[in-house]
């Protein structure tokens, strides 16, 4: 099952490689990983998407907790949560396709942020599956380039992950 794991860690050089190294050393999957400092510059917030059985995910969170620089770990799947991912897609847009793609972008509530006479660059946010759906909706041969940030997640309601 897919799990979205959030962690707070010391914003120090090498902390990211400890997490990445843990996953490769123990053979855990990383679907995506995104990390950036928080409002407290000494802390980084990481969102990790991984796939595994309940036993594997239990080990993943325990092993992450064991890393000295990791301050807090939470499996967002344990409660209600919201997740978003940002995607930038450059597509070939000529002739009839220009209108068709524009409509599609509107349907997916994205925006076109750069235009040339042959291409559009589209910005789209949403859950990872929504982004997947958009890519499926666009004809494959039109897609020139795709950049995705990986998911970021946050708990619903007043629940917060803080030190």
């Amino acid at each position, binding site marked *: 099952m897919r799990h979205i794991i959030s962690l707070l860690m010391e914003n120090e*050089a090498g902390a990211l*490689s400890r997490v990445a190294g843990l996953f490769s050393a123990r053979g855990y999957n990383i679907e995506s990983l995104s990390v950036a400092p928080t409002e407290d510059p000494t802390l980084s917030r990481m969102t990790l998407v991984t796939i595994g059985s309940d036993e594997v995910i239990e080990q993943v969170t325990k*092993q992450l*907790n064991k890393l000295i620089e990791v*301050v807090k770990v939470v499996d967002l799947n344990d409660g209600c949560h919201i997740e978003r991912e940002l995607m930038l897609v450059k597509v070939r847009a000529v002739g009839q396709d220009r209108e068709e793609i524009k409509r599609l972008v509107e349907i997916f509530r994205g925006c076109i942020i750069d235009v040339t006479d042959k291409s559009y660059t589209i910005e789209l946010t949403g859950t990872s599956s929504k982004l997947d759906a958009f890519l499926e909706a666009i004809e494959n041969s039109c897609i020139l380039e795709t950049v995705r940030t990986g998911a970021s997640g946050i708990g619903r309601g007043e629940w917060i992950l803080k*030190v």
Partner: protein
Amino acid sequence: MSVELTGAEITVRCLQEEGIDCIFGYPGGAVLFLYDELFKQDKVRHILVRHEQAAVHAADGYARSSNKVGVALVTSGPGLTNAVTGIATAYMDSIPMVIISGQVPTGAIGLDAFQEVDTVGITRPCVKHNFLVKDVADLAETIKKAFYIASTGRPGPVLVDIPKDITQHKASFSYPSKVTMRSYNPVVKGHSGQIKRAVDLILSAKRPVVYAGGGIILSDAAKQLTEMVQLLDYPCTNTLMGLGGYPATDKQFVGMLGMHGTYEANMAMQYCDVLIAVGTRFDDRVIGNPKHFSNENRKIIHIDIDPSSISKRVKVDVPIVGNVPDVLKELIKLLKASEGKFDQAALKDWWKQIDLWRDRDCLKYDRESKIIKPQQVIEQLYNITKGDAFVTSDVGQHQMWAAQFYKFDKPRRWINSGGLGTMGFGMPAAMGVQLANPKGKVACITGEASIQMCIQELSTCKQYKLPLKIITLNNRYMGMVRQWQEFFHGNRYAESYMNALPDFVKLAESYGHVGMRIEQPEDVEAALKEAFKLKDQLVFMDFITDQTENVFPMVPGGKGLSEMILV
């Protein structure tokens, strides 16, 4: 305003403040300023090894036998890469250790400088934590953190990488008396609700077993374990790492379990109904195939300080995360106060069954042999040292025979590389043990293959007059490799014969030690006695043993605990 000290002075002062009396190392370009400071003082003694791997193993043996943090000091580049085997060895066995490594100057890092490696990167997977010091102002606190992390929670090696310019830069020095880290707060106290559940389960047992590992030794919980086991009258088994955690000569001890464990220990493990696992991790050499292990129905209580050790390979019913001696104390208190009754009748039947398994006499060997049997050497060593020696070992058949035939009644007497299985560990570890226990009898049980992996340390032993007794069980084979080839590879002994062996007697003598070669079974006892009479000298004993002897019982890889090959 405190005085300003150089980074090198600060490092040495930190070691002094930590009460470190002995470190193991090898100098080089990046650590010259550190060595200069060591030279100017006499509180911290430096032991010069002949290879950095040995420095780390020696610090390891020092730590294991004394429960102090071991310290090793190596230079950048090859100094560090040589040390990696030692660091990984300590990591696998959770040994508290601080490794200080030199690094090229900060300005040269990343430029492929002479003797530069990415030390933090290379060691990351085999340390509990590591640091690269980038500012001399952070040095003292970093070293304090290193000692704190190494020795608390589940212990482990921590590395501090210090660039050469940092050892020259100055900063004001004050050694923090303690550090707090928001990201590191190991659990100490066990959950009281879980402990109560454990008590109920323990009292309900009809076929109980206590299975205790290296965590007992590391946390100094032998006393509490012994008290609990004797209070309950339950059988107790130790893992390879846990030997000495429960007195081996006690009748409730059923021997070591695992791949080369006793028949009675493995059968009891497989067929118990309540398993009390303490400071241990259900690893592959202990329970064999986890699926086969789970075929039998049993309830498991697991006490360990490391949450990630719990339910890793085997699902447990009552997990208790906490410091083992504290949890055991709590358990004992509740057991004593408990109204519940043990099922005495069931326990009696269980002991009857265990005694039947014991009657199988799984460790028997040919005592009439005309060739020296390795088991005989260990038994004699046990008799002559009255079970009171510190025994280190290398890795292979000799290690298993040592574990089976030397009866350890006390913790911290049996020192071996259980997790990583590092050949070459025995002699350097014994050096550390001897330095931590200057009056102790220290024996290193080894084989003619393992000993050659760190044999250069005979020189270190001479320099520091370390009177080790090196007991080489020389069967002219990498014995355990040969055994597996015999059992599982159709007797094809690929590259497992030790050709072109040196004359170990002459070799020992050339280093200034005493060498002995023992070829007849009737000479074993006298030779050992003579060796231990030479109190101030290292004696290298080359026992020419039976080439065909195998270690039994054996649980083949991938098989279940009850599927032993027996002699």
